[in-house]
């Protein structure tokens, strides 16, 4: 493999192109007389000029310099990198879905609206909620939508509540979303067992509490078993409970956020419901709410009057619009296909196997790697590099060495409350053989730390690129090609 793939600008040659567009069959018109000269482009955009074979070779070469779930095991904690079913990639490309204009008459898009309507019902059932909006385009967008709904609810009751309680194990998007929503974040410490400390929560909750944002199971892969008490503390203070659905893959068909006392839930279709992550999107982050919050859902809301499906804009208490149209429809189609393929028993089996796989990794690795918490985990487990640190080997180094074995590393240095964290989420789509191979590699690296730490510290050795200088990249950013 070449050490560098030239950029597409470097392989450009004047006169080449990769699409035969045709000349167009209408008479010419005089651009200069129709548009003021100073608004016309003076200098053409210097886009690359490549032939079609050059283009395909370029992007194919780039793809070979990248790792996806189809390339190998991807146990990236909190990201739920499960297998993306291929039939979903086909059905979402049916022309009846792709060649559909969002503003065409709903009468002519009944199939799409029926799918949206039913998908919202299915997700509400899974989460134990009363209604769902499919509009948010990603998890963080769902968080924003959810917090806005909560704020609108408090406002409708004449209350000004300014604070969001977020445990110290939370995803970074939680506090960032609170800020974007004009709310202040109050952190609560986790107790020694990795769960929310009830005393700290009681102290933090009060008349200014708008919401508690919680992931359950939390980012340590542990179930917040005091969730009933937690809900009571927050509800007694007049606040609402927000469920970050990043870890929903652990409990489908087994337990529901709605039954735990959560008022608002977001789900990540690109995690739990097997839609591809796309290298950082498009995702989809539907939000479910309990009945009192339904009036505040963003517009439009897919509706059904018993005969026709439609889009309901007549919602005076709505938080307003949050997406240019109705959300990432193409992603929703894939997730809908997944739910229909699995059925209720299948989804429950998904969560059982996801939890089984994580516990298997935990149990087979806890001898070599320090496990900060006793007992079982749910869908992901957190280990640390504490045992390797005396040899100068950190979590980052273990991650880089795993690349040499052909694995995507676990999430590292998260959750923030665990020093040198390695967070492993195998997902249910990995076989015992795959897990055994990964466990073997992890053990070899643990052994290597004692015998040849230098080999780990200089890893990766077998990838197309070595460790990259991120400091230099940020100090003097080069973010675009310049001719």
């Amino acid at each position, binding site marked *: 493999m070449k050490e*560098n793939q030239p950029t597409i600008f470097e392989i450009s040659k004047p006169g080449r192109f990769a699409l035969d567009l045709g000349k167009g069959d209408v008479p010419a*018109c005089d651009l200069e007389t129709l548009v003021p000269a100073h608004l016309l482009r003076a200098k053409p955009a210097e886009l690359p000029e490549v032939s079609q074979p050059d283009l395909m070779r370029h992007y194919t070469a780039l793809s070979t310099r990248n790792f996806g779930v189809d390339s190998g095991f991807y146990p990236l904690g909190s990201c739920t990198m499960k297998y993306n079913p291929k039939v979903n990639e086909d059905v979402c490309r049916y022309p009846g879905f792709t060649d559909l204009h969002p503003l065409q008459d709903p009468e002519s898009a009944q199939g799409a609206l029926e799918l949206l309507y039913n998908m919202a019902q299915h997700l509400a059932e899974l989460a134990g909620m009363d209604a769902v909006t499919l509009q948010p385009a990603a998890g963080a967008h769902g968080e924003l939508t959810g917090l806005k709904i909560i704020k609108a609810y408090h406002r409708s009751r004449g209350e000004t509540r300014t604070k969001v309680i977020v445990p110290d194990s939370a995803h970074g998007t939680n506090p960032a*979303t609170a800020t974007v929503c004009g709310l202040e974040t109050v952190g609560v410490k986790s107790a020694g067992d990795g769960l929310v400390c009830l005393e700290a929560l009681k102290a933090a909750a009060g008349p200014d509490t708008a919401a508690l944002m919680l992931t359950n199971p939390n980012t340590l892969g542990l179930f917040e078993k005091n969730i*009933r008490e937690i809900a009571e503390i927050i509800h007694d203070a007049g606040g609402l409970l927000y469920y970050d659905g990043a870890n929903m893959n652990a409990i489908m*068909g087994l337990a529901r956020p709605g039954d735990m006392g959560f008022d608002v839930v977001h789900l990540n279709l690109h995690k739990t419901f097997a839609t591809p992550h796309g290298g950082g999107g498009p995702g989809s982050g539907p939000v479910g709410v309990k009945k009192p919050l339904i009036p505040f859902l963003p517009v439009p809301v897919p509706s059904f009057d018993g005969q026709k499906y439609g889009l309901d804009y007549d919602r005076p208490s709505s938080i307003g619009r949050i997406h240019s149209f109705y959300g990432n429809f193409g992603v929703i189609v894939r997730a809908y296909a997944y739910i*229909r393929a699995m059925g209720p028993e299948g989804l429950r089996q998904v969560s059982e196997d996801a939890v089984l796989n994580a516990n298997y990794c935990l149990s087979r690795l806890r001898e070599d790697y320090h496990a900060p918490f006793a007992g079982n985990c749910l869908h992901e487990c957190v280990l640390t590099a504490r045992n390797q640190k005396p040899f100068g080997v950190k979590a980052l180094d273990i991650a880089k060495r795993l690349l040499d074995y052909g694995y995507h590393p676990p999430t590292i240095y998260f959750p923030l409350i665990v020093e040198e964290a390695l967070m492993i989420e195998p997902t249910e789509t990995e076989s015992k053989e795959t897990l055994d191979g990964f466990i073997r590699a992890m053990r070899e690296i643990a052994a290597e730390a004692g015998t040849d730490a230098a080999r780990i510290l200089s890893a990766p050795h077998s990838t197309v690129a070595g460790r990259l200088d991120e400091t230099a990249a940020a100090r003097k*950013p080069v*973010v675009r090609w310049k001719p």
Partner: protein
Amino acid sequence: MAWSYLPHNEADRRAMLDAIGAASAEQLFADVPADLRLTGGLNLPPALSEPELTNHLGALAKINADLRNMSCFLGAGAYDHYIPSVIDHVIRRSEFYTAYTQYQPEISQGYLQALWEYQSMICEITGMEAANASLYDGGTAVAEAAMLACAASGKKTVVMAQAGHPHYREIFQTYARDKDLEFRLAPYGDGLTDLTGLRELIDDSTAAVAIQSPNFFGCIEDLKGIAEIAHARGAYLIAVVDPVSLGLLEAPGALGADIVVGEGQGLGIPLSFGGPYLGFLATTEKLMRKMPGRIVGQTTDNRGNRGFVLTLQAREQHIRRDKATSNICSNEALCALMAAVYLSALGREGFREVAAQSFRKAHYAYRALTSLPGCEPVFSGPFFKEFAVRLPSPPAEINKKLRRVGILGGFDLGGPYPGLENCMLICVTEKRTKGEIDRLASEMGAML
């Protein structure tokens, strides 16, 4: 029951439970209190086999009247441009679409480079210094740009053009409400933002002026003049642009824009009933470090080779948490890749040609339609690929009739714009043939 996505058989499960030291799968859920366990099972439809699934989805898809069987003259923020075949062949490489965000650059060089090339192309067409690796869509990109302008200036008011996409300002209003940002609407006259009115709305509290061009009516705004008005009061200019138009129209960067955003769907991304689309955002070098979203930067690896990494991450939520200026995490990377392949496929000449053909065909349609008795132009200003006509009867009625003859008519402007009842916004892309345009004119002529 078994599922093809789940590899374990019962023997595997048993062996793994034994290794864990658990008697049953049930035991692994011991921390979930018994009274929270779902006992009845989920009330969802039963599992479908793959053939059943494709039949079911095929039947749903078939109910929709899709654009294969209609001539589309509907735009209004989502456009039926031609999508080159190469795009789907590239994005179906599973190394791209099944990957996650590029947190491990050593095994993500391909995607990082593709996104860096995308950023470069966005900079090139907009005339800006830096672009991010995507936002959700055009509307949220406008909201993010406005919040960026407020954060960078420390001011709290944003003036948006009424002639901009109504959905985009609605999204900003949703975003702005909880941040205590103020929103002012700049009026229009004859299809263009009224510069006198605009001037009056800008004061020392104005963080930015957001102007769409071509605007929602398809008319081309004087971005240069508006930049001067905004800058005179120390406000940023946010230019909201149709990227396809930039093959013909001057790059907003050359006209004085500080932030350029827009909907990238027209760059090779299917209409797909409104998403997934592509929000793009580009800025001056000065604002680069305040941009929301992922940014890819060039660097070198420890072997001395050129490489790419996610950079300036100190801006982002996973590092700055409650101090971050945006909460965005997952974005629309694969759609950015589609846009990059699109722009690479068209190249320098093709990019201009798509814009030129769209312009030419829209003007041909304009002449054909406005020569029909009863069909009057609404505005007189210069336009790109969309224009408004006033009709003797409600557009909804005309569209219903057009649909019966396989034509998807234009957008009814009366909804969002009081005073523009009976006005229809017609969109013509390079994909429409002369025959289709002639047929639209003759069918409409017969109806009026």
